[in-house]
Each structure stands twice: as structure tokens, then as C-alpha cells.
């Protein structure tokens, strides 16, 4: 039954791919329009020479470091803002105004301060990842049943244990939701940052080339539209896998949530 149900979308997908291939081949504009077998060739070539894996892992590494930085600063600040009301009132206007600036709008500044190296991209990613952590951790820490805090205190818990055993677990589901958004933001802005940092890094012969930089060189040096599509597909697949992993993580870390 399930196999049968898969038949219709699968069949349609095959037809669409074939139609795409046929349309591009008949147009005679192969340099301008990508086509399926071309994408496939680009995939085998970049997998064989290792450039796809190198660029993907470079971008992922930056995302993970930036994500970790965003979490390291964002979670404590958010919990503090949510749990200690005066801190929240003092800090949230600044946080709210800064977070309405799109992270990629910082790219020129980051390039100015940090140069056209990986650090600028790292800054953008950390910045993008920071705010969802702050906002969600603050909300998770603020929306707490006071009776739970009272219950812990009446059982003998001091301030540290209340924070560790009540405030943090209470905020955890919201923090993990924030982590999912952070990860999506981080992955989205790494590509933008690397695109902006662009080709100069590659001409410098640096090994630190991410997917975005690879796309720039593919566009301007190789002029390979099939390569571009390949990288787009890789970006999409990685986004999907990241979110899948984050949702798994969320479920396994908060088993009390139905």
C-alpha cells in the first residue's frame, strides 16, 4: 500500500526530471541553464576531487562554531533576562532593536573589522545564532510556574539548585526551539557571508573555502551552472538533515513533553 502511494509522486518526479533535461538540451543554451545529467556530472567530479566535501565541511564547521558561540552567550543572557526581571527590562530594548537588523546587514562591518577571512563569516553566523537563543531562553525562563520554584524551596533547595533543577529544565523546551531557529539562521547566513567574502580568499590559495565561496568561484571562474545547482541542492539537503537532527535531539532531551 505504501509502495503504491509512493508511485505517483515518484513517477511525476521522474517525468519532471526528463522534461527538464529535454528542454535544456533542445534550447541549446547549456552554458546558461543547468540540466540534470550536468548536475550529476558536477557531483561526481567535485566528489572525486574532494572539493565538495572540503567546502561543505568548512561551512559546517563555521556554522557549528558560530552556533556554539551564539548558545554560549545567548542562553545565559536569555535565562538571566527571563528570571531576573530588572535585567530583562534593562536589556530587552537593546536586544529587540539589534535583532531586527538582519544578520547579513552586518557583513560590510564584519569585513571591515575582521577582513576577508573566515572570521567575518564566523561573526555573522554567531550573531545570527545568538538572538533566537536569547529570545527563547528569556521566554522559557520567564514563563515559570511560581509554585514549582516554591515547591523546590520548600524541599530545601537553595538558589543554585532552583536555577539548575527548576529554571533551566523549565526553559529547556523553549531553548531547544530557539536552537532549531538559530541553526536555521546560522546555516542561512553562512552561505550569504561566504558569498559576500567571495573569491579573494580562493585567489589567496587558502584552504578555508566554504560552500558560498565555492559558489562564487564556480560562477565567475568556472562559469559552471550545473555546479551552482549542485551546491544549492547540497545546501537544501543539509538544512533538512540539520532540522531533522535538531527535532530528534529536542524529543530525546525533553521526554516529559507529550
Amino acid at each position, binding site marked *: 500500500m505504501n509502495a503504491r502511494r509512493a508511485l505517483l509522486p515518484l513517477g511525476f518526479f521522474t517525468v519532471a526530471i526528463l522534461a527538464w533535461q529535454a528542454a535544456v538540451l533542445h534550447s541549446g543554451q547549456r552554458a546558461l541553464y543547468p540540466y540534470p545529467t550536468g548536475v550529476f556530472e558536477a557531483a561526481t567530479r567535485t566528489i572525486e576531487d574532494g572539493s565538495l566535501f572540503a567546502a561543505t565541511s568548512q561551512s559546517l564547521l563555521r556554522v557549528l562554531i558560530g552556533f556554539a558561540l551564539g548558545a554560549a552567550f545567548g542562553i545565559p543572557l536569555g535565562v538571566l533576562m527571563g528570571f531576573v526581571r530588572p535585567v530583562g527590562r534593562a536589556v530587552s530594548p537593546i536586544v529587540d532593536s539589534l535583532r531586527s537588523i538582519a544578520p547579513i546587514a552586518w557583513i560590510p562591518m564584519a569585513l571591515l573589522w575582521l577582513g576577508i577571512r573566515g572570521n567575518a563569516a564566523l561573526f555573522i553566523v554567531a550573531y545570527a545564532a545568538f538572538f533566537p537563543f536569547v529570545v527563547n531562553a528569556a521566554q522559557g525562563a520567564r514563563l515559570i*510556574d511560581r*509554585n*514549582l520554584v*516554591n*515547591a*523546590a*524551596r*520548600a*524541599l*530545601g*533547595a*537553595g538558589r543554585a*539548585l532552583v536555577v539548575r*533543577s*527548576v529554571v533551566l*529544565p*523549565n526553559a*529547556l523546551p523553549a531553548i531547544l526551539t530557539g536552537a532549531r531557529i538559530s541553526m536555521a539562521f546560522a546555516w542561512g547566513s553562512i552561505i550569504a557571508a561566504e558569498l559576500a567574502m567571495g573569491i579573494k580568499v580562493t585567489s589567496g590559495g587558502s584552504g578555508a573555502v566554504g560552500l558560498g565561496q565555492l559558489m562564487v568561484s564556480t560562477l565567475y571562474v568556472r562559469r559552471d551552472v550545473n555546479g551552482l545547482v549542485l551546491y544549492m541542492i547540497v545546501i537544501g539537503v543539509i538544512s533538512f538533515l540539520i532540522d531533522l537532527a535538531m527535532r530528534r535531539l529536542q524529543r530525546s532531551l*525533553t*521526554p*516529559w513533553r*507529550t
Partner: protein
Amino acid sequence: MTGKIDAQSLSKTYVSARSGERVEALQNVSFSVAPHEFVSIVGPSGCGKSTLLALVAGFVAPTSGRVLADGAPITGPDPRRGVMFQDYALFPWRTVLGNVEFGPLARGATREAMRATAHRYIELVGLEGFEHRYPHELSGGMRQRCALARLLANEPEVWLMDEPLAAVDLQTRNILQDELLRLWGDGGDPGQRRAVLFVTHGIDEAVYLSDRVIVLGRRPGRIKETVTIDLPRPRKALRNSAEAGRYNEYIWNLIRDEAARAIVEESA
């Protein structure tokens, strides 16, 4: 006269943060609870009975007056005064075992000791086999038992209970009342019993369980009368007795008019 708990001329006025309006929740309330005594507080809604319990627990400070525990002023929560909440306030991220272990954990027990204590009290309240369930996987009655085990695991000298049976159905409530009496030591040596302050809106429940019932009036909350329930223990055979019925009726007559007014005012 020093009891386990002494409330002296307690008043509590809340100031609404939004309107600045002052609400006098309690006015000049004095009472005491003897070391082995079961005292209930009943009254219509809005009489400040939950506020009274929060004051004794140390969650809030009185506007004037003071509460003493063993003769010393209460400045904050203390594990020697265990609290049971109306909504149980179980930690949703901890299993039954984790919840019951929390008190010993907070007081610095070793891993083995807190596990042993938790298992003992889980068994005592009849929750064995459910140790690894989360609160959302339990029925109302089981959550109530879990909250009771959590309270008992700290071996507090005073049990403060804020309408602990309000959220379960009638049959479950009757069963849990008997369980509570058994755990308190209703049929046993009076010297082994703990001091209990039990807030409820159920008059029959208060009469059935208590040595004394403090009847509060409302707006502002103040003591109307303290009724000594002179019924023998164990109480099990007396649940539907004529004597208990007379106490129920007497207390009901004390608060009926205000309870009726409360209904109208709450809906306004």
C-alpha cells in the same frame, strides 16, 4: 504557649501592581498548631486561606504580625515544613522517582540514601511500579500520591497542605483521605503524628480529618470561629456518622451566607 506553629496577629494586604488597589487578604489572624495536631482551615472563596498557608510556608511575608515555627520567626521556606500544593507542583521533567528524590537531594543526601528513601515512600503511598513515569503519564490520584511521597521523603515536622484533594474525583478523594489519615498515624500512637495545617473548601473533609477546624470569614479574611472536632480516632467508621454530620452542619451555618455572597461577587 508555644505550638509547633504560632501565627500572631497576621495581616496581609496585597497591592495590585496594575491598579494600585489595596486588597486586604487577611486581618489580624492568630492561631496555633500543636506538635501532633491536625488543623484544617475552611472558608468561602476569597477568605485568604491559601494566603495563610503561603505565610506559614514562608513563601510570602506578612504585612503585619508574624508566624513562629518552634518559637522562631519564619523568614522563608524551610524543609522542616513540607508543602503540598493544590496542583501538586510536581516537576514535569522529573519522573516519580526523581520528584520524590528531590528533597533528599536538596538536603545533600548521598545517592544511595536518597534512592532508598524515595523507594520507601513510593512504596508507602502505593506507587511502586510507576517510579519511571513522568507526571503527565499519571492519573490525578497518582499525582497526588506522588506529591505526598515527595513531601514525606523529606520527613518534615509540619505538613502544610493547600487543597491537596481538590482536583480529584469524589471516590478518589475519599480513598485519599483515608490514605492520608493512615500515613499521618490516625490509628496509631498520637506521639508519632506530625503537625498538619490543611486548607480545604470541603467542610466534611475538614471535619473528617481534623482535631480542630478554623473557620475563616471573607473580605477581609479573619477567623470567625475555631471548632474543636471532638470525635475519637481512628476516624474511619465515623465518615458518615451523625456526630460528623452535626459538625458539618454547624460549620456550614457559619459560612453559608458569606459563601453565597462570594458566588455573586466572584461572577461580578
